[in-house]
């Protein structure tokens, strides 16, 4: 306040002021440039990490889309398949199809005799080849007695060799390919009977102990059923809860308590939800283990807080003037919400839902608790069939010792990412459709 002790300053001339401003301007622009540089660095770093992630996964996983197949002339010998000549499905199912594969292979290499050599020869072909022949015969019993040229799955070792995953000098170690097998492989390749083809197996099969037969279909369907049910349950419940809390509930201690608890639930570790699902849905209600139904219930609990919080924020962002307008027109509170507020909040609600669903899609821990980690070969066809989910499948494969599962793991990650990208694109399109200016 008191300025008496200080020397009296001469008022600045406009020129001096200008100089001061200029100097400070330089400083301000410097700060601005620095800030922009920091931001740019952060963005570049982020993009670099994402690029690195995608590059590694693609590099490791892209080979999964091709798979070694052997082309064989198979004779569906009635003597082997159906010696009694009944053509009944049960008899056709139980036949020794491996013998057909063996015969076809020996026909390719006529000189081979002796149990050991024959066994080594048959090891070039996957055990899934017999299943493939069985499937063909069951689908078309008329094949019996016919001759057919088919592409059959090669074994995992052959596949890895063709892809360069195992070197030729590794041969003989760890019970891998022998010198003879190597020679046969070379012969088959020369004849054009062994090549890498599009890997249909990966997309139509369920899980398997044999890497060359393992596919993501089971996990994809499991994830699909789980997510579908999660969406069906969590979207209406979440939106209804948000609408009630935001538009109708009185503001008192109870609603405050509910709000705090919803925020807390959003931060609960997901494995806790898994334990709760195990105790309540499986232990108490006796729902089937490993089922998408239970997975969906658990993931619903997990995504609900996210959806509710996002939906409330979106509802809060709707300008009050719209509510006033509707109420003053004589719209009832529920009409106001349904006709005017919800449509305007929908883009925000959808964004929140998609974030919640994306989290649910990638969630592994709670599914482990409710048994969706089991080894399940069959592709689930409903909400109560035993199933696994994509992230759990990735977890399972990454844990498998066979080298063939390395590329399967990356392949499954690619499928999971594709799933996510499709979902997010759908969300963006939906958003666009609902977005309106006011």
């Amino acid at each position, binding site marked *: 306040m008191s300025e008496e002790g200080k020397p009296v300053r001469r008022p600045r001339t406009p020129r001096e002021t200008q100089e001061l401003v200029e100097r400070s301007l330089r400083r301000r622009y410097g700060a601005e440039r620095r800030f922009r540089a920091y931001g740019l660095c952060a963005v570049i770093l982020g993009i670099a990490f994402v690029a690195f992630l995608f590059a590694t996964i693609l590099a490791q996983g892209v080979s999964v889309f091709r798979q070694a197949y052997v082309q064989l002339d198979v004779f569906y010998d009635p003597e082997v398949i159906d010696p009694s000549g009944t053509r009944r499905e049960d008899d056709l199912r139980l036949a020794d199809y491996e013998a057909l594969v063996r015969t076809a292979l020996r026909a390719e290499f006529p000189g081979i005799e002796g149990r050991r050599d024959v066994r080594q020869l048959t090891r070039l072909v996957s055990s899934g080849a017999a299943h493939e022949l069985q499937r063909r015969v069951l689908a078309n019993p008329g094949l019996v007695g016919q001759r057919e040229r088919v592409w059959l799955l090669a074994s995992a070792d052959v596949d890895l060799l063709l892809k360069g995953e195992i070197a030729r000098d590794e041969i003989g170690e760890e019970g891998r390919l022998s010198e003879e097998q190597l020679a046969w492989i070379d012969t088959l390749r020369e004849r054009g009977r062994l090549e890498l083809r599009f890997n249909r197996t990966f997309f139509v099969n369920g899980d398997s102990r044999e890497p060359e037969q393992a596919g993501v279909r089971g996990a994809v369907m499991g994830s699909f059923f789980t997510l579908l049910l999660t969406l069906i349950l969590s979207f209406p419940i979440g939106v209804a809860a948000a609408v009630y809390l935001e538009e109708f509930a*009185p*503001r008192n201690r109870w609603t405050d308590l509910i709000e705090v608890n919803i925020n807390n639930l959003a931060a609960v570790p997901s494995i806790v939800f898994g334990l709760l699902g195990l105790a309540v849905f499986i232990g108490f209600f006796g729902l089937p283990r490993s089922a998408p139904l239970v997975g969906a219930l658990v993931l619903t609990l997990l995504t609900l807080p996210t959806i509710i919080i996002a939906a409330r924020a979106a509802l809060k962002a709707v*300008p009050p*003037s*719209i*509510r*006033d*307008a*509707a*109420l*003053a*027109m*004589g*719209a*009832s509170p529920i*009409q106001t919400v349904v*006709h*005017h507020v919800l449509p*305007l909040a929908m883009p925000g609600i959808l964004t929140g839902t998609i974030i919640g669903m994306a989290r649910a899609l990638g969630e592994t821990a709670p599914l482990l608790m409710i048994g969706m980690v089991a080894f399940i070969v069959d592709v689930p066809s409903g909400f109560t069939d035993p199933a696994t989910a994509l992230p759990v499948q990735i977890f399972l494969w990454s844990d498998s010792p066979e080298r063939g599962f390395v590329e399967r793991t990356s392949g499954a990650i690619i499928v999971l990412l594709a799933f996510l990208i499709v979902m997010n694109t759908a969300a963006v399109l939906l958003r666009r459709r609902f977005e*309106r*200016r*006011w």
Partner: protein
Amino acid sequence: MNDSATLDESRIRSAGAEPHADAPRARAAERLAGGEFSTVGDVTVPDPIFSCRHVNVYYGEKHAIRDVSIDIARQEVLAMIGPSGCGKSTFLRCLNRMNDTIPSARVTGSILLDGRDIYDRKQDVVQLRARVGMVFQKPNPFPKSIYENVAYGPRIHGLAADRVELDEIVHTSLQRAGLWDEVKDRLSQPATSLSGGQQQRLCIARTIAVNPEVILMDEPCSALDPIATARIEDLIDELRATYAIVIVTHSMQQAARVSQRTAYFHLGSLVEVGPTERIFTNPRHRLTEAYITGRFG
């Protein structure tokens, strides 16, 4: 002593009064507003549509409207004027119970619409708002098409039997609001593409589409330019033949132009009410006089 004076002054300021108002005068105003006087002028009219008696409104602890009694006549424009924060908008929002949306708001006293208390438990709010329409300060059309904006009210109240009748209602409403010629070729375009003045006329069209008895207008022209304002004022003058209109305005010229009766509010109290001409030429209360001569407000 000193403390209470600054307190008083700050209260006046927060109420939006002239910041230069000196403390003693502000204290006097506060005392007057405290209910130590009754409204100057005749608050009653013959055959009123609205009859308000001893209305008090509280926002939590805040006493926003103090013992206001006033009648509103049919086929008449009543202008409510007064400095910002004097409660005129609050009072207006009592008339169609829009204050219900504010959880802390509490209304006492009686407001009779055609002899029935609108705060009666049997009164349906939706029905009340169909009878008492409202136009807001900022044009707030729904983010839908022009047609849908006008058709919304008749549709939710089931006023149109079929599409033809609905078209008819939309047509006449837009025509009465003086908007038809400007929008007839683009009824399906979004209402937000209209100019501010057009949007406000659309809001009026939307309100009259449900054929209310009273239209409340809360500073309908404060966001508009003079030309758009003049159009709305002409419109109000035409609508007076059919509806009772209550308009809150900050512009004394506007009050003088459009209204037949004027009510002057000050700090939540109704200070003076009377025929517009008399209020503006011969105000009886010195607060009214101070306000309309521009000494504060």
